[in-house]
């Protein structure tokens, strides 16, 4: 069998980077599926892209800017209306533990 493109350890690491809680079953399935997709994507490696510039923007444009003129902000009530946990004028979040 060809060497796996992605290991379980990498799946764990990426899930942590992406802040996704995955069950063990999900992780195993994810590993298999990602492995398959990455193998498919591997065909890109064969392509010679020496000297080819990357495309970040489909239609080239530059210098799109706006003037420093104030526009009305939205009312506080509108901004807080969707808050899952509202604390007065603030959004509230659970305790923050440094990783």
């Amino acid at each position, binding site marked *: 069998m060809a060497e796996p493109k992605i290991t379980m350890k990498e799946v764990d690491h990426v899930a942590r*980077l992406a*802040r996704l809680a995955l069950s063990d079953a999900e992780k195993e399935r994810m590993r298999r599926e990602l492995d398959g997709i990455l193998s498919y994507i591997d065909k890109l490696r064969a392509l010679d892209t020496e000297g080819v510039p990357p495309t*970040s*923007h489909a239609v*080239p*444009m*530059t*210098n*799109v*800017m*706006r*003037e*420093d*003129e*104030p*526009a*009305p*902000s*939205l*009312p*506080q009530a509108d*901004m*807080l209306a969707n808050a899952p946990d509202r*604390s*007065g*004028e*603030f*959004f*509230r*979040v*659970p*305790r*923050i533990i*440094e*990783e």
Partner: protein
Amino acid sequence: MSGAYEVVIGLEVHAQLLTRTKMFCGCSTVFGAAPNTQTCPVCQGMPGTLPVINRRAVEFGITTALAINCTVNADNRFARKHYYYPDMPKNYQISQYEEPLAVHGHLDIEVDGAARRIGIERLHLEEDVGKLIHEGSLETAQSSQVDFNRAGVPLMEIVSKPDIRTSEEAGAYLRGLRAIVVYLGVCDGNMEEGSMRCDANISLRLHGGELGTKVEVKNMNSFRNVQHALEYEIKRQTRALETGERIVQETRLWDPDKAQTVSMRSKEFAHDYRYFPEPDLPPLNIEPALIERLRESLPELPAARRQRFREVYVLNAHDAEVATQSRGLADYFEEAAKDSSNPKAIANWVLNEVLRVVPGDDEKAIRSCPVKPANLAGLVTLIEDGTISGKIAKDVFEKMYRSGEDARTIVLREGLTQVADAGALGAVVDGVLAEHAKVVEDYKAGKKAALGFLVGQVMKATAGKASPGVVNSLLAEKLSKL
């Protein structure tokens, strides 16, 4: 001191730009609004929203880059920097990574008369994050509150090269950088309020040896704290190295109450920010004409102005530094001093009396001073030509401050003209000497302090208007004859 070790310090400064609106949306940047009232779907990172670059922020960035001798990258672009934190609405910050606005500049500083050039690695633009308010301290809080008013405010990040070698140099670098951004009007340089922030990277190495492990130091909210924190770190790392202990690569926070740095977390591995070019923003291509226009509009910068004040007005180093601490103050001084025969006296008045009475050293505060520069110059002239004494002048200044009038008008109206006529004063002196024969005896017996008393009595008798110089010489003459 560190002796065997060379200290290697790099400073990262974040300066909030004085634009009217945020970096990527039209919300106001005015400080102090009620929480979450200066936000919109864009700066709150609501689904579907898109950023639009603030032109003035870019111009402020270019202007600053020119003032610190950087090369402006005509082609530069924004990039996304990813990490999860509740003050980050999108959980990525729009910043600049591989193609920043400017690179490779320098700032010249002076410490104890020695001049040094501190290299600047890069200058780039990014958006600020919101404010987190913890219930108590970060370590013990069960929850925190988020206010996004500040999220999206334009920030300029200036990264120095690791050229700084002492905590004094760090202080000088910060003060120099602050003076420049304040002069340019791009940032108000207020470290206590957070409009200018500084993080440090510090390591120690043996002279000529390999670079040591870098420690990041944060939470230093004043120039003094930066110096103290660095001094502490130098001591801590020196001690560690001398006892064979390994320096951990980590982030430490300065605790001003305990006067020490405290480990925040063991950051053995760097963050994986997963930078990639911001797809929602087309790249910038700065036209040479714009760079030239901004370069031509640069004002005389603090260092050059300081130098000129020392040469033209013959101010000493300290006075020159204080007089140029803000553009407003420097303008005031120069306006007053330009036609004066005694710029040194003008400097004394500006740095002592004027600074004492104005609410701040920013342009608005200085301009609000009722004593206009020309009038201050007039006051000094009256002292120079003997019309009034220095002591009376202080009173006159107070009156000028209250009424906005010029000195001569006040002096004439209130009859404050100094009395210098030897004949008139001679009579007063005689009277005083006659009245205080005992004191005269004390003086002749060797008590030099008695002279001061006698001078004081003459001043009292003349309601302060006697010329101190004439009084002193008259007293000396008459006492010697007794």
